[in-house]
């Protein structure tokens, strides 16, 4: 039997909580972990250092807790989904009726671009639903930008309130709706000028050459350039084989980073999880995008009036404010 608010729920119970002080954080994080341990439910803490410290202090004996440092766990959305799924799969083998996880999702307030984490927050509603899982995503209102808080409200079906209640969230949107209704991802500052290269219906080989040439003039490391070349090649191949032409490849760069976009006139992949979870169907675009999400420093997928755009950044993205 699942303990707590997910009692009687089947699948992923995805909850957020907003807090404005350490005390407030401890007021729900402490009981979340303590009650889990008492009930014998596998309990995972993947918080930023300061919050992990608060949890340790509040709980005392944390010997039964699985700590997964947030800096590793949340390096990239696709990695996070893969690592969590692997972890949940192994914990579920214990036969426990519920697994608990509390984790600090990165955002601009903690130094990370938000768009792909917004997709993550929506996508995990599906990607974790096979587990009897209670997930709690706390957001610090002192550091979290308003646009992030708005997306968090739209991606979590339940909100924990300060008085200990768990409220069904009327603003929640199914991932499919969220992806369609959410505005375009934030562009990189380089995109405010015209691209240094525009290719229409290029061969993937021509795109690979173009990326290598442009990257050679930047400080982006060679291993990362390999990943970027793969990403560009895959995005163009997907556009040419699954999208609607013409396919436009654009590239911008300065001496420290590279931005490339691939736009076709189609609607993009229908699957809201595309790129975030691996697919076994290699004929679809999913696996190439999943690898791209895994290896590149920033990836966005946008459906818009002119079609569908994949954006990939090499080096550190500098998103417009």
């Amino acid at each position, binding site marked *: 039997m699942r303990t707590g608010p997910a009692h009687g729920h089947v699948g992923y119970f995805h909850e957020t909580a907003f807090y404005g002080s350490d005390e407030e954080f401890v007021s729900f994080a402490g009981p979340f972990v303590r009650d889990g341990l008492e009930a014998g439910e596998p309990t995972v803490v993947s918080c930023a250092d300061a919050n992990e410290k608060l949890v340790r202090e509040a709980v005392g004996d944390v010997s039964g807790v699985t700590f997964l440092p947030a800096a590793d766990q949340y390096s990239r959305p696709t990695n996070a989904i893969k690592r969590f799924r692997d972890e949940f799969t192994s914990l579920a083998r214990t036969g426990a009726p519920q697994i608990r996880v509390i984790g600090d999702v990165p955002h601009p307030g903690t130094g990370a671009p938000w768009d792909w984490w917004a997709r993550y927050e929506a996508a995990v509603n599906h990607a974790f639903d096979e587990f009897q899982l209670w997930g709690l995503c706390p957001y610090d209102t002192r550091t979290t930008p308003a646009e992030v808080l708005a997306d968090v409200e739209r991606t979590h079906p339940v909100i924990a309130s300060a008085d200990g209640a768990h409220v069904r969230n009327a603003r929640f949107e199914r991932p499919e709706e969220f992806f369609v209704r959410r505005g375009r991802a934030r562009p990189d500052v380089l995109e405010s000028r015209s691209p240094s290269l525009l290719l229409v219906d290029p061969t*993937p080989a021509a795109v690979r050459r173009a990326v290598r040439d442009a990257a050679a003039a930047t400080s982006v490391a060679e291993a990362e350039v390999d990943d970027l070349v*793969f990403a560009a090649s895959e995005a163009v*191949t997907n556009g040419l084989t699954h999208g609607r032409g013409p396919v436009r490849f654009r590239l911008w760069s300065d001496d420290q980073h590279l931005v490339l976009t691939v736009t076709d006139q189609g609607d993009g992949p229908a699957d809201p999880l595309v790129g975030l979870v691996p697919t076994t169907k290699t004929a679809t675009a999913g696996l190439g995008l999943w690898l791209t999400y895994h*290896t590149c420093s920033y990836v966005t997928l946008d459906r818009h009036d002119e079609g569908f755009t994949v954006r990939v950044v090499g080096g550190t993205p500098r998103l417009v404010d």
Partner: protein
Amino acid sequence: MRRAGVVDSARGLGPHDHVCWSYDDPAEFVARSVEFLAEGLELGQRVCYVGAGSVEGLIGDLAGLPGGGEALRDGSLQVMSLDERYRTTEAVVPAQQVRAYAEATEAALADGFGGLRVAADVTALVRSAAQLDAFCAYEPLVNRYTATRPYSALCGYDRRELGADVIAELACLHPVASAGASPFWLYAESDDSMVLGGELDFRGRELLPAALGRTRPRPGGDLVVDVADLTFTDHHGLFTLSDFARRDGGSLTLRGLRSGPARLLGLLGIADVRVEARR
């Protein structure tokens, strides 16, 4: 040491090189043949020019070959019709044809030449599906022979007649090819190793499984593929290679794989492939 990769002329090739030249203009193949054979004569090899049509016409093609007339008289240049050289106008019998070239090479050596060099327009031998299949079995076999014996060949294929797909199917089985003929090259020099170079993207997705099967027609256990000159591969290429090794029931070692695709192997969970630094 043989050449591998893409060339833009038939100059500078050695006694073990095997080249696919696809052309749109027959005059272009004649010009490449003249380059190829002229250097063969300079290297002290017996050279042989083979094509469709009459021997007189073929001799006419070689008007620009320096010392061609004398070479023809003293036996250092041979000119043959396809029919005579391949003993068929239908499908080649791969092992037989390799043996025929081996005999011709040994005869050239016995006559005091450094080896045999052949330029042959073989378009007429790959027109039907059955002919093409036979020739695709022959090319890997001849690669094995040229690896150790001084037999070099320039194979001409008419793109207007055969189309780019058939050209790619043939070209990828040659260590060396003219530009744009195939995105990759694959050849074996022994039972347990292969060389794979170029680029593997969606253009090669169907070509590669067939090329692997032709290069190693019978399952043979452990396999080492030298991929040091493979400048790009997508995940399909990696899956195809590991699936092929599994068919053979042996291990797969990718020698000299770049760090990017090596990381992809890990992410994809392709655990049965070993990555080795280039020797």
